[in-house]
């Protein structure tokens, strides 16, 4: 194609009323050329349809508002070089008229909300034009035909924008100037607390968003009475940040008085570290976390586990990987921000966890991300405003807007038992006011994690989604990150005299009070009250920071800094406070580069603006660090100095002292009250459906289980994530002939070319601890650890080299019942970790996950414990995958199966009675089984291995066949003949086909073994429970011996792929 025939941009200049060459806002619209497919517009149409709105037509345009002294020629050059593709797009200056019959919606970020594209465009315009004074804002314009104005506005709020971070305009926005901050008047504010009464202290705590308890407020009051002065605002804020649940884990670290209300033969509390059993049978626990999770690790270390390098003290846990390298791992939650702004909340959740890894030791390189989401069933909830019927009903009734009424919310406890979306008995609930629709939440959190991880170039390669309607107002978003570092860089320590240096993003008014917000309870008004806690991330800023830090770490002559940490919850306040705990620190707040004017000194100090790291830099190394940052386009700022007389935190603004706190009081002054915990086995909720329902035919049950969203394929999510960037993903999240099989865990090669791998997996067993089915969080914790270990073992990890993490997400622990449940889960962590010899190396908790509707009904989430694990794979060539390999191979079920259907998915679907018993991990046999299976895999005796958990044994076999299934034809497709009655049963309970096939007993594996290797396997397994349950065939069907099930694998696959094919 000759240049002459190449496309030229079409230009259409609409009438401009301001021809004067001044610093005006020039508006450029960029849209697809007529006749070109526009997938973004099509996507809007598709998504509108899921909301029940059929759009006749949608046109999409990108909008750029550029405030600069641009002449016409410069603007044209900017548009052609930068903004519009000559092949695909046309650009228009000004606002093009809407097509006939179409209504316009235009979305712009609210002032102060991060707009990364605007920053990029501003820099590019500067480079093209040489102009200096440039401000840019970007927006999106939609012209929609076939809707009313009201519907268009609803679409804008429900789909195209989030009013928490976006301004929505009903016509093209043409501002005279772009908003910018003005200078803030500076005066030191003190808050009078010395004379406040207890109710007044509580009121202040709530209204100022401090979220400190009365005891804590009194401790603050006492300290300032001792000092003989009122605190300044920044001092109170610093204490609130540092003492927040988010930062200090005060519940898990507190002393607890635990009382069981009925006889308990599950846990023996005697002889546990830090536990005292009183004569009356109460248990007093001194620092729950230290006496359970942490104690297990220290006991394991004392007992010969010599490969942990740093546990519980740094941003992430660190273990040895090989002689030269260490790997570190961290998992965080970002639940409350994700409830309000799911895209930004999830993205910054991922970004924050990545920064934890960058800030571990002297800095690690992030090499993998993980994500687990808990959301409500998308198909169970309706938004009244968007369906026609609802619109009619609403009529003149204003209250129609307030979705949920208390009877709906009360019914939630029933829906918590998760009827299948296909069931006619499924209740549809009106979405409570203040909640985003679960479909939108899931869509947006996936997009948030995707965009951050993909842009950072970190493969997101392990995850899960758990559906439960009690997450309707309080979804859970777990983001994990794994890093690799040379072993000599695992520890850092700031030194007196080191400069406090901030790197990366500028500080703005975004994310104020995020740390304390996480302690608040979500309600129908949270979006209004806490919009300032929400942030939008800028992954490329963080990537630049990472590039700079790795260069500074690896500088010739050693790292250019002595300590590093990230700015997360609490912002500078937490980062500087933690790094300077033993030294003291003096900070000059006016030195922090700001996104815009107008921040007060307190806002600068506690802002949780993203993409910032804090380093302790010896003065003589500052110039070298500055040079690297300049080369990587990273902003650097020297905020102050570590080390003060008397180890104080001294805060100044333009020279004037605005705060002074002793580090000792800041870090040790928090009172540790004794908290009350009780336990009574919850009464299972009676399900109408399970009473009335006939026992399901096994083949239908299998198809329904495969289509249960917890079990169904997550390919829609996994394939949006770049899980192969860095080129080191050796076992991918989806495996098998067509990349559809759900792998148990992923394996990466942290140091490419070495042949040594790291498996990354997780265990989640929420069903077994669910109060709605009479579950026990102790059993849930054991099962989660067991499942995590099995997932890692199934791909080839060495069970002697598995480190795990705990993430507790709990409803309010101010309720003794919930704290009792937490105690039991923590005891399970202790017993499980010791039995499996899997040390906890890090963890995090989020302990106020519930939502209160406008009707005053509180919906508590089910207690949730995510166990994440990393396991060393000594030789990646020994890795196996879960997809069935060859006809004629035998299928083995290793482990025992009991008729314990409590908490199983079969029970959720109504195939088991509500009060069925919950399975218990055998802590002697479970670890032995894991070691035995790992041994078989290491010796190459296993063709495929799959853990047997959600849905039970037959679902596991079905998944192995789905993994093997070629997409286009049945010819030669693998199938299996199974005799499920051959499984090894535990005694005691009456078994049935359903419990054999779909029970979720722990510690089980399905293995595929070549017939010729059976003898070796038999010898190796010795006295452990296992049987041969069937054989792989080449007829493409899954059949059971009694013909209870006889289904084509293609049919199984279709059922499994359908539910989340969004």
């Amino acid at each position: 194609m000759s240049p002459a025939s190449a496309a030229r941009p079409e230009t259409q200049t609409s009438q401009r009323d301001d021809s004067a060459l001044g610093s005006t806002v020039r508006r450029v619209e960029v849209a697809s050329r007529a006749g070109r497919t526009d997938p973004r517009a099509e996507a809007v149409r598709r998504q509108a349809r899921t909301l029940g709105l059929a759009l006749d037509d949608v046109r999409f345009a990108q909008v750029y508002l550029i405030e600069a002294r641009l002449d016409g020629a410069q603007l044209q050059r900017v548009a052609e070089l930068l903004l519009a593709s000559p092949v695909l797009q046309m650009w228009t200056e000004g606002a093009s008229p809407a097509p006939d019959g179409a209504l316009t919606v235009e979305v712009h970020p609210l002032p102060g909300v991060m707009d990364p594209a605007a920053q990029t465009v501003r820099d590019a315009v500067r480079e093209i034009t040489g102009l200096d004074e440039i401000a840019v804002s970007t927006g999106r314009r939609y012209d929609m035909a076939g809707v009313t104005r009201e519907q268009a506005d609803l679409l804008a709020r429900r789909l195209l924008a989030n009013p928490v971070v976006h301004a929505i305009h009903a016509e093209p926005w043409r501002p005279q100037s772009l908003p910018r901050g003005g200078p803030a008047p500076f005066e030191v504010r003190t808050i009078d607390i010395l004379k406040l009464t207890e109710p007044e202290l509580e009121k202040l705590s709530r209204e100022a968003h401090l979220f400190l308890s009365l005891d804590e407020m009194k401790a603050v009051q006492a300290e300032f009475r001792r000092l003989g002065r009122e605190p300044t605002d920044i001092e109170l804020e610093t204490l609130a940040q540092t003492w927040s649940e988010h930062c200090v884990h005060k519940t898990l670290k507190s002393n607890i008085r635990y009382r069981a209300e009925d006889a308990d033969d599950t846990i023996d509390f005697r002889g546990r570290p830090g536990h005292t059993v009183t004569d009356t049978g109460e248990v007093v626990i001194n620092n729950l976390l230290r006496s359970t999770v942490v104690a297990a690790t220290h006991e394991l270390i004392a007992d010969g586990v010599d490969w942990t390098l740093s546990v519980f003290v740094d941003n992430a846990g660190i273990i040895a990987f090989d002689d030269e390298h260490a790997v570190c791992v961290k998992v965080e939650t970002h639940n409350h921000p994700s409830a309000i702004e799911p895209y930004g909340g999830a993205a910054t959740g991922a970004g924050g966890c990545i920064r934890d890894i960058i800030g571990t030791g002297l800095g690690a390189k992030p090499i993998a991300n993980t994500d687990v989401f808990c959301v409500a069933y998308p198909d169970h909830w309706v938004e009244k405003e968007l369906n026609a019927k609802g619109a009619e009903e609403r009529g003149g009734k204003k209250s129609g807007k307030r979705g949920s009424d208390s009877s709906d919310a009360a019914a939630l406890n029933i829906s918590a038992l998760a009827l299948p979306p296909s069931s006619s008995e499924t209740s549809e609930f009106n979405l409570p006011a203040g909640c985003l629709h679960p479909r939108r939440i899931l869509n947006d959190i996936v997009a948030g994690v995707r965009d951050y991880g993909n842009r950072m170039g970190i493969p997101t390669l392990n995850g899960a989604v758990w559906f439960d309607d009690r997450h309707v107002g309080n979804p859970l978003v777990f983001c994990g990150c794994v890093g690799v570092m040379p072993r000599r860089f695992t520890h850092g320590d700031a030194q007196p005299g080191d400069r406090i240096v901030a790197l990366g993003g500028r500080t703005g008014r975004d994310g104020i009070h995020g740390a304390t917000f996480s302690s608040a309870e979500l309600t129908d008004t949270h979006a209004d009250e806490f919009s300032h806690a929400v942030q939008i991330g800028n992954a490329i800023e963080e990537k630049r920071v990472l590039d700079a830090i790795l260069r500074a770490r690896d500088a010739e002559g050693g790292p250019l800094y002595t300590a590093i940490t990230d700015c997360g919850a609490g912002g500078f306040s937490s980062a500087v406070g933690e790094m300077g705990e033993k030294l003291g620190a003096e900070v000059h707040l006016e030195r922090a580069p700001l996104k815009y004017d107008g921040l007060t000194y307190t806002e600068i100090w506690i802002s949780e603006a993203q993409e910032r790291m804090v380093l302790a830099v010896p003065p003589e190394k500052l110039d070298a660090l500055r040079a690297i940052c300049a080369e990587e386009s990273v902003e650097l700022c020297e905020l102050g100095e570590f080390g003060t007389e008397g180890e104080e935190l001294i805060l100044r603004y333009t020279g004037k002292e605005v705060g002074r706190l002793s580090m000792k009081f800041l870090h040790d002054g928090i009172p540790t009250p004794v908290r009350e915990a009780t336990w009574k086995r919850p009464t299972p909720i009676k399900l109408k459906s399970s009473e009335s329902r006939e026992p399901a035919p096994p083949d239908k049950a299998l198809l329904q289980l495969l289509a249960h969203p917890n079990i169904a394929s997550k390919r829609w999510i996994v394939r949006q994530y770049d899980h192969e960037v860095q080129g080191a993903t050796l076992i991918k999240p989806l495996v098998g002939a067509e990349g559809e099989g759900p792998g148990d865990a992923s394996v990466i090669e942290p140091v490419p070319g070495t042949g040594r791998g790291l498996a990354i997996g997780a265990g989640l067993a929420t069903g077994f601890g669910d109060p709605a089915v009479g579950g026990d969080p102790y059993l849930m914790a054991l099962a989660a650890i067991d499942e995590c270990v099995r997932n890692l073992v199934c791909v080839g990890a060495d069970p002697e080299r598995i480190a795990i993490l705990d993430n507790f997400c709990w409803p309010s622990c101010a309720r003794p019942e919930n704290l009792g449940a937490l105690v039991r889960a923590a005891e399970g962590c202790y017993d499980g970790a010791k039995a499996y010899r899997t040390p906890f190396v890090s963890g995090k908790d989020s302990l106020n996950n519930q939502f209160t509707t406008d009707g005053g009904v509180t919906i508590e989430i089910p207690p949730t414990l995510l166990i994440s694990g990393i396991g060393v794979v000594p030789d990646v060539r020994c890795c196996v995958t879960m997809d069935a390999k060859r006809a004629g191979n035998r299928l083995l079920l290793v482990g025992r199966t009991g008729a314990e259907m409590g908490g199983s998915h079969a029970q959720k679907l109504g195939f088991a009675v509500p009060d069925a018993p919950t399975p218990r991990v055998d802590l002697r046999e479970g670890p032995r089984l894991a070691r035995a299976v790992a041994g078989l895999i290491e010796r190459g005796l296993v063709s495929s291995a799959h853990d047997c958990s959600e849905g039970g044994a037959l679902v596991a076999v079905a998944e192995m066949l789905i993994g093997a299934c070629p997409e286009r034809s049945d010819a030669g497709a693998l199938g299996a003949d199974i005799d499920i009655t051959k499984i090894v049963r535990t005694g005691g309970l009456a078994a049935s086909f359903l419990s054999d096939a779909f029970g979720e007993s722990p510690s089980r594996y399905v293995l595929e073994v070549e017939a010729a290797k059976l003898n070796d396997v038999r010898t190796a397994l010795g006295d452990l429970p296992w049987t041969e349950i069937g054989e792989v065939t080449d007829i493409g069907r899954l059949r059971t011996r009694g013909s209870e099930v006889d289904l084509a694998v293609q049919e199984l696959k279709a059922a499994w792929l359908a539910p989340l094919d969004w």
Partner: protein
Amino acid sequence: MPHPSADQPAALVIRTAGTNCDAEMVRAFELAGARADLVHVDRLIESPARLDDYDLIGFPGGFSYGDDVASGRVLAMRLRLHLYPALRAAALRGAPMIGVCNGFQALVQLGMLPGPERAGDWPEDAPPAQSVALTDNISARFIDDWTAVEIDEQSPCVWTRGLVDSELPEEARARVLLMPLASGEGRFVAATDEGLKELERRRQVPMRYAENLNGSMGRVAGICDASGLIFGLMPHPDRYLDWMNHPFWTRLPGELRSGDTPGLRMFRAAVEHVKSGGAAGSSTIQGSDSKGARV
């Protein structure tokens, strides 16, 4: 400083803010027998003459400048403003170049691909106008998946030379000749249907998807310039350097998992081209030279 030699050609891998597949590409060049330097584009803009030191040039994947505005757009703009003369000189002296994913997106918008109609006809002042584009996948979603690819063995492209392993039976070849795709804006669009036909006629489409995951016109996965030295593709050969990167290597028989992977073969082909005198820092006009080397 690089020391180009016939034994070990020097490769330049250009990174910038948001580049994230640079380490893989460096490793690819090294495994293929070159030595590779990773250099920030800002350093090259400061001294464009540094490009003259290299025998091969790679533009790796990632999200340059966040892919704000459009994928690769800002990088393309900066290359156009600052580095076209140096890149033109490299093209004229016959240095093979490769753009993978984001690098491909940048080369297309810069105008280096598909380049001038006749090999060597690079305009002096500014690169040819953009005539093809890579844009939103038809699903409007990012896709990470592996796909079988078809290779035009008649293409002048040096990078795909010998990629099809003729020793293997066809069925085995189909199981091995896959490429990983990971992009949100990977759909190939030519400005005109005639433009695409013209490219095809000149054999400038060395690689197509067997299965059109992103809705590309003509299933185009990669295009080269008329000389065959400059190649851009959306799939990531740099993520297929080891057999254990293959998406179902646990199903492949051991004998299929030996020798160079298809990903590595591509880099090897270009490095070998340089070693055999195709470029080697010489100042020859590449057109006839590279054709000669191909025979």
